[in-house]
């Protein structure tokens, strides 16, 4: 388990409405530097929306989002650029640029930050690709990779510029248990190696056990539960138990 530091992300009374649908109804959450937070919750409860709001990819309806002491809800698209570089994001399907090879995808954040092509840059790319087990696949296009490899390549792209925090949006969704386990280990290793903050959105209870320092459970746009993985799995709250054990209500 990591030792959490001062607050890195602080969200207050966050609301998000899309069309007629109220996705988030007043989220209050503080994420500390160095901690591994896992967000769980049913489909459509606003977990991915929460990540996108904190990244500034979609605007909040109301509320405050402070990242590294900067209120981001008042920033425009261009002002958000430097803020976003502090956070790496692993998208649900990887979102690799399909016209670039794996190595070019990983090099992309470095080039965009102004780094010139150099042996130093290439060794950094190789090091990151090796860390995710793709050292021999740098020349391939994303279309030639399996789902698990794509996620690992996307993880390499997310960490190569050494962000202070990484968001993982359902990193193990659609993967077999063995690949899922390897992704979980990778998240853990990444956290230890780069000492970064991690926020993982998942439905996978195995991931919760292996990754989380703290868990929050989103339900109907609010935080229904917040605590350690042990507290989650020993909770007597019927709604938490139902979600953790994956039982559907007979009446539903």
């Amino acid at each position, binding site marked *: 388990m990591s030792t959490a530091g001062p607050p890195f992300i602080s969200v207050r009374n966050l609301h998000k409405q899309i069309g007629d649908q109220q996705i988030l109804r007043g989220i209050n959450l503080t994420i500390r530097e160095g901690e591994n937070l896992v967000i769980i919750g049913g489909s459509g409860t606003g977990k991915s929306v929460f990540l996108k709001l904190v990244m500034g990819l979609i605007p909040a309806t109301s509320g405050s989002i402070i990242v590294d002491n900067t209120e981001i809800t008042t920033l425009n698209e261009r002002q*958000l*650029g430097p803020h976003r570089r502090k956070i790496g994001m692993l998208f649900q399907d990887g979102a690799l640029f399909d016209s670039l090879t794996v190595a070019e995808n990983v090099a992309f954040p470095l080039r965009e*930050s102004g780094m010139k092509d150099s042996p130093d840059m290439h060794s950094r790319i190789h090091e990151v690709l090796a860390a995710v087990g793709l050292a021999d696949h740098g020349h391939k296009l994303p279309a030639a990779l399996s789902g698990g490899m794509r996620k690992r390549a996307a993880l390499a792209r997310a960490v190569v510029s050494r962000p202070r925090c990484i968001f993982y949006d359902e990193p193990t969704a659609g993967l077999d248990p063995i690949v899922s386990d390897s992704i979980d280990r990778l998240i853990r290793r990444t956290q230890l190696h780069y000492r970064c903050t991690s926020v993982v959105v998942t439905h996978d209870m195995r991931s919760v056990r292996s990754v989380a320092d703290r868990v929050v459970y989103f339900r109907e746009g609010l935080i229904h539960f917040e605590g350690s993985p042990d507290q989650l799995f020993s909770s007597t709250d019927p709604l938490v138990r139902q979600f953790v054990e994956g039982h559907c209500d007979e009446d539903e």
Partner: protein
Amino acid sequence: MSTFLSWLGGLVLRFVSYFGALAVLTGELTYSLFRSRIRWAEVGRQLVSIGFGSQIQVIVTGAATGAVFAAQVYYKFNQLGLDSLVGGIVALAMCRELGPVLTALMLAGRIGATMAAEIGTMKVTEQVDALRSLGVHPVDYLVAPRFLAMLFSVPLLIGESIRFGIGAARLMAVGVYNVPEAFYNDQLYKNVDHIDVIFGMTKGLAYGYIIVIMACHQGLTVRQGAVGVGRGTTAAVFYTSMAILIANFFLSLLLNYIWPIAAT
């Protein structure tokens, strides 16, 4: 009556909103071109796709138009005993109207569709969000390089189309219909000068802007997965083609005022 008014109001609102969005995108593009870093590698990649990739299309469009137009004009002019004028008329039409408009329409089909589909697919597969998450403004990376490549390519492609049109017309008039070459050339040089070529290439700049802005806007606003990409691509080709034809009317009036057809 109220239904009609509400339909009309909705149409006007959509129209204003669409052109407002294009104006905002143009503003972002201007910012990108003058205040952001230009990705020259990406410009190069687009130059290959737009410039080199459109060669066959542009050559065939220019040559076929020139040849067919020469044949049609020849039949009528032959009846009037004005065979030698064919070269001048075809060249003038190719420079001022047919070359720029037909080439732009062909590019709207090929390049406009490609841009809308590429960017639209990136949008629905979260690649545009990935770009933004890496601190890169999508207009800087996706629109500005395409615009610059288009700006460099289109005038040259139009020039090429005009050249092949005039060449094919000569082949038809002199080679097939036996118009005396000396008379043909004389009328050609009397009726057309470099201003007419500049006229056509200037139109190309405007069409390049229309194709890039409208196609990229369609791509960036795609929703609803593959169906949305299909709709966006179709809309891009339709809107850019319509806009080129409408803009051509006004541009022709304006440019004819600036560069009138030379008196022979």
